[in-house]
């Protein structure tokens, strides 16, 4: 063991300087003790891909505004570039967010895609495609994707039923579109409503107990 004359202290594990006073320790040849702690190299969390994407996004916005000022156009298209990039980022953030598990990500995507489609539809002159097609189709595909990922990832039913249920209720929302006559193509909405009702019924019939337990657990006061 090494000995620091200044601190009058023995030091385990070979080192150059005293842990306490940082004075250089006399060299001793008695290093039989094994190391107590491993040397842990620093972590470098590499976010290079994300950094490049952020850089490209900012460059694209600046360039589009610059071009628009040099060659003015009737449509304010740089604004659309910003909205486009924002939409992509919104989607990406939810997907990339650590810790969120698949069913939760899927439900988030349904929300984001639905809201963005309404926004875009409205922004480029209301044609109704968001309500006609995008929202009902998203809800149905989310249900299918959720079921498939749950099977592939072998998720326990309690891991996804709450989200399946949320998605099911979202899928019924197009009923409002039909009632208030907001849509001119009703087939996607009908399909969405039907699948949702069937899926909710299935969840309650086969996993009603689990739902009750999940709610008890999550809602305890």
């Amino acid at each position, binding site marked *: 063991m090494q000995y620091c004359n200044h601190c009058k202290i023995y030091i385990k594990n070979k080192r150059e300087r005293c*842990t306490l006073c940082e004075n250089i320790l006399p060299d001793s040849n008695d290093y039989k003790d094994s190391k107590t702690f491993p040397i842990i190299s620093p972590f470098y969390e590499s976010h290079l891909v994300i950094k490049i994407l952020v850089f490209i996004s900012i460059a694209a916005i600046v360039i589009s505004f610059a071009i628009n000022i040099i060659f003015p156009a009737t449509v304010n298209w740089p604004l659309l570039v910003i909205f486009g990039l924002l939409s992509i980022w919104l989607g990406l953030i939810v997907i990339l967010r650590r*810790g969120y598990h698949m069913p939760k990500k899927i439900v988030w995507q349904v929300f984001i895609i639905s809201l963005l489609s309404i926004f875009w539809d409205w922004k480029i002159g209301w044609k109704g495609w968001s309500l006609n097609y995008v929202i009902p189709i998203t809800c149905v595909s989310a249900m299918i994707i959720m079921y498939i990922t749950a099977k592939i990832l072998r998720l326990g039913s309690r891991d996804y039923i709450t989200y399946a249920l949320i998605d099911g209720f979202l899928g019924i929302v197009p009923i409002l579109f039909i009632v208030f006559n907001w849509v001119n193509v009703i087939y996607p909405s009908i399909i969405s409503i039907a699948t949702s009702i069937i899926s909710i019924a299935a969840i309650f019939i086969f996993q009603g107990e689990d739902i009750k337990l999940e709610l008890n657990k999550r809602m305890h006061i």
Partner: protein
Amino acid sequence: MKQKKTIKWRRLDNASKIFPATITSIDTKVFRLSCELYDTIDPEILQKSLDLTIESFPLYKSVLRRGIFWYYFESSDIKPEVEIESLPVCAPIYIKEKRNLLFRVIYYNKRINLEVFHALTDGSGSMWFMETLIYHYMTIRYKDKLSDDIPKINYKASISEKMDDSFEKIHNKIENRNKKSKRNKEKAYHIKGNKNDENRTRLIEGSMSVKSVLDLAHKYNTTLTVFLTSLFFYSIYKEMPSNKVIYPVILSVPINLRQYYESATARNFFSTMNISYDFNKNSPELESIIESVNDSFKRGLTKEEISIHLYKLMSLEKNPFTRIIPLGLKDLTLKIANHINDRRITTTISNIGQIKMPTEFQDYIHQFSICVSARRPQITLCSYKDNLVISFTSPFEETDIQRTFFKYLTSNNIEVTITSNF
């Protein structure tokens, strides 16, 4: 018919609730128990021992999850695996939305380390897990040598007693409900320093003979804990900038409630008391510090004083209004409350006490130690046989307080051996 498995879940106990909300990258709310043997650790035997140990501690199989109003423990079927040490001391364990176990068992050369997220249990609760783990390790690893006298395992309590939420049990039995606690609300001195790289925890362990420190404490007519607490006050004072002396130094000392309320829970069951010393008004001599600390300990450790503080803590949790605040908001409120409370504390000193293992094992176990993630230089200590290990953990590069502390001991002819992870 297929057997249906129901998922069990449990509420967090009173003391646990603060931990998930107040995690920071510096203070991960993780603590580490270490057991150093004389031989190098065999990972396969350690894994076998862990598999046996976990069966006696069902709560350790839980993961922490977020509900709408509260966090809760959910039982899982994750199998804990031993790993070689590859992360900094007290690296984060609970990560939001990641469903992992709330402890890890790691080994390196001669050490077995158990790192635990504080919401799961406290030092005494986890030391119990550690003792069981070491018991199994010893009986497998040294089976041949122990053949004549393998000691019997001491379970100490039933599984349900270990799972007990003791705070809940004593809530209605607390006396002195209406007395106000007389804790002062003044701002305490805060130790400042340069942060370690990556906010890592700097651990400095000093190991020494229990007897020699006890002898020194007896010279001052006091106990080991009071003596070391006073010495900590003294070391902090020595490194205090002169313009900061106007602030009192206030140490928070955890109290193990098991001995006061007859509980054998393996979950959290502790409270704290604050010991204050004002260097602006009092003499900085160690003798007078000891005298004052001695009085504060006597006052703080009466059952009346403990129960007053406990009742105050628990009534907040029982308040119907606090209950219905959504979790996100609750986290924020707890963070702020914790921050305010933190202003009144300089740092913490915690003594886990003496660790007892069957005497048959003493030729194989060198020492036990404990340390905890820290916002400021802080002390945790425990002893085994005649080995007292005092661990300083600190987020700062500076080691002046540690140096003053240990140099005082060595200048009184106590032989100290230092180990550090830096």
